[in-house]
């Protein structure tokens, strides 16, 4: 049993719900149970997991799946496309892609990492870093940043745009791309496209270094706050290549404990069903994955930028590795676990992604024309990739008529379910316990959630919008007052019951 997961009693407690309302099915909310002194007795992140997409996939021909699954998420469609393609590589017996195909897929994937992390860092995280938590909430966003720091905001937009351009040139188009197919890719990169992508890279790398320095300065100005905000220790899982380097496209999975010691030094992701289990809890539709041999209470872990930068032995690009070493130094030989460090790790990954893209564009293989392979047909395929938010598992079975008969997806947000719940409890205890509830304090909880940037679309296997609604309820669940941030970002407050 986790602390604050279940209150001993709900008698006499009030309930607060931070409720993202989705126009499509699938959404999440945070609920807090407080007593009359506003002492917290229970904190939970609920996500209504909607498994419809797995059913949607069943019966479809396998070659269609890499395109269809892109609709799972509007932010990282490429990750779903590539994870599905890796699984389908196994289905068609393509054990080893051609060098050109693998490098073009990597180019596409690192473009995805750059654009997604850039949106997160510059759009979601930097407002907290640049403007501070006490800033007027409506200004704590990319527009607030743009007003005060126009250069930073513009750099964020242009880095995101660049990542999208890498995707466009490798996937064929920015959305609904068909570049990656089972067995390889179907589009070669032209010399003109390569040269166009190379042109702006030095400038972008310089901007990403500026982003890293921004977080470093923020840490130096607020080390105590930075280290303590939403702090909790946990195991971590990430993908590493054979020599222990970070690899977000392909490798084994490694799990380390909270002290940085290996729990499983590496395992082949095709054996994930023997290593991982998913626990079901009555109060949440989203499952809680854990390492089977450790059990649910000790076996949970976090994934994503902060986890993978610490499960790997090194980042195989010099500027990002130097930045990683600086980040690790704040841990004094212990892993870094503070929630705000996710943002630090994320901008280091932007820098790494751009360095990798530069190396790939300098590699003559990316202009090759040998694009596909195939081998002996199989009935089952598992594809795993490091999506921007963490480990993404796609698992399919395909019948002799080429139709998908089984689909199982474990997305990054699901892996982080327990970690997000723990982060919320940590922040709730740190900033809300015993104090008057206000929008500013609730933003701290939102900030903890933002660090993981949960993809409710993926977690619910749906695509939705997430305006926020905060309810103050009594113990019986009756709404006493309502604070709602609508789809335009405006905040409305209303009393529901006079008594």
């Amino acid at each position, binding site marked *: 049993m986790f602390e604050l997961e279940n209150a001993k009693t709900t008698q006499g407690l009030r309930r607060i719900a931070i409720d993202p309302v989705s*126009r*499509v*099915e699938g959404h999440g909310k945070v609920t807090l149970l407080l007593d009359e002194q506003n002492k917290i007795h229970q904190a939970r992140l609920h996500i209504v997991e*909607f498994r*419809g*997409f797995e*059913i*949607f996939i069943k019966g479809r021909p396998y070659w269609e799946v890499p395109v*269809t699954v892109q*609709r799972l*998420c*509007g*932010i990282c*469609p490429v990750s779903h496309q590539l994870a599905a393609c890796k699984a389908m590589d196994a289905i068609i017996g393509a054990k080893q892609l051609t060098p050109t195909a693998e490098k073009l897929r990597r180019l596409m994937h690192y473009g995805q990492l750059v654009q*997604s992390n850039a*949106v*997160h860092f*510059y*759009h*979601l995280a930097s407002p907290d870093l640049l403007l501070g938590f006490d800033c007027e909430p*409506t*200004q704590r*966003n*990319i*527009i607030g940043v*743009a*007003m005060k720091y*126009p250069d930073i*905001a*513009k750099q*964020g*937009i*242009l880095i*995101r*745009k660049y990542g*999208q351009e890498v995707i466009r040139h490798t996937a064929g188009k*920015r*959305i609904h791309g068909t570049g990656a197919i089972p067995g390889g890719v179907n589009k070669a990169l032209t010399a003109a496209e390569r040269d166009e992508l190379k042109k702006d890279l030095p400038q972008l790398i310089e901007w990403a270094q500026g982003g890293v320095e921004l977080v470093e300065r923020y840490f130096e100005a607020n080390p105590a706050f930075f280290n303590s905000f939403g702090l909790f220790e946990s195991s971590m899982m990430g993908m590493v290549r054979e020599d222990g380097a970070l690899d977000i496209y392909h490798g084994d999975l490694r799990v380390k404990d909270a002290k940085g010691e290996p729990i499983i030094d590496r395992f082949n992701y095709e054996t994930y069903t023997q290593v991982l289990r998913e626990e079901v809890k009555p109060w949440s539709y989203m499952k809680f994955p854990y390492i089977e041999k450790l059990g649910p209470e000790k076996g949970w872990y976090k994934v994503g930028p902060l986890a993978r930068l610490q499960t790997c032995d090194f980042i195989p690009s010099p500027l990002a590795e130097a930045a990683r070493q600086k980040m690790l130094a704040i841990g004094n030989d212990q892993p870094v676990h503070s929630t705000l460090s996710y943002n630090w790790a994320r901008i280091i990954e932007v820098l790494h992604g751009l360095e990798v893209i530069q190396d790939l564009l300098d590699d003559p293989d990316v202009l090759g024309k040998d694009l596909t392979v195939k081998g002996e047909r199989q009935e089952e395929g598992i594809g795993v990739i490091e999506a921007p938010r963490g480990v993404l598992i796609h698992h399919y079975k395909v019948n002799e008529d080429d139709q998908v008969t089984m689909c199982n997806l474990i997305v990054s947000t699901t892996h982080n379910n327990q970690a997000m719940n723990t982060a919320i409890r940590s922040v709730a205890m740190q900033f809300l316990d015993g104090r008057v509830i206000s929008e500013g304090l609730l933003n701290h909880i*939102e900030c903890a959630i*933002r660090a993981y*940037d949960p*993809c*409710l*679309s993926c977690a619910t*296997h*749906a*695509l*939705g*919008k*997430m305006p*926020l609604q905060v309810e103050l309820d009594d113990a019986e669940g009756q709404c006493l007052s309502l604070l709602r*941030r609508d*789809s*335009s*970002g*405006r905040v409305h407050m209303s009393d529901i019951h006079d008594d």
Partner: protein
Amino acid sequence: MTTEVLLTAWGNTSRGDDALGPSLLQRLNAWALSSGMAERFEWVEDFQLQIDHALNLEGKTLALYIDAGQNTPAPFSFSPISPLKQPWHTTHAMPPESVLAVFEQTFRKPPCPAFTLCLKGEDFGIREGLSLAAQNALESALVFAQKLLNNPTPEAWLALAHAPPL
């Protein structure tokens, strides 16, 4: 030929009526191609609006944002929009007003006149294809949008925005 008018639609074609925006854009594009008008416009389709969509506004004189709506007027609504400095708070969605605001603050100049065309959807569950009500909304909106594209000036669009939809 310069494309001074931006047409942007977004939505997920696997989520039922969420596909209304892309569906209308595709129908409009086919019509504009057949009538030789397509090159007058910049056509943008995406899953969701994002900060970099502000870049598409550079050099434009007029912009139209097309989306599906829930609990919005049937069969569609058409109205002018302005930059809104209270934008979205996640990486997974952004309203068009915030895109305008990002442009304004980043480029330090006002965006071009912009409008939304919001088609009412009924069913946003996981499936392909539009509901019957959404198909009707699509047909109505297509006729209306053709009028817009035939006369792409802020004055003409503003006059249509102030008139009843049909």
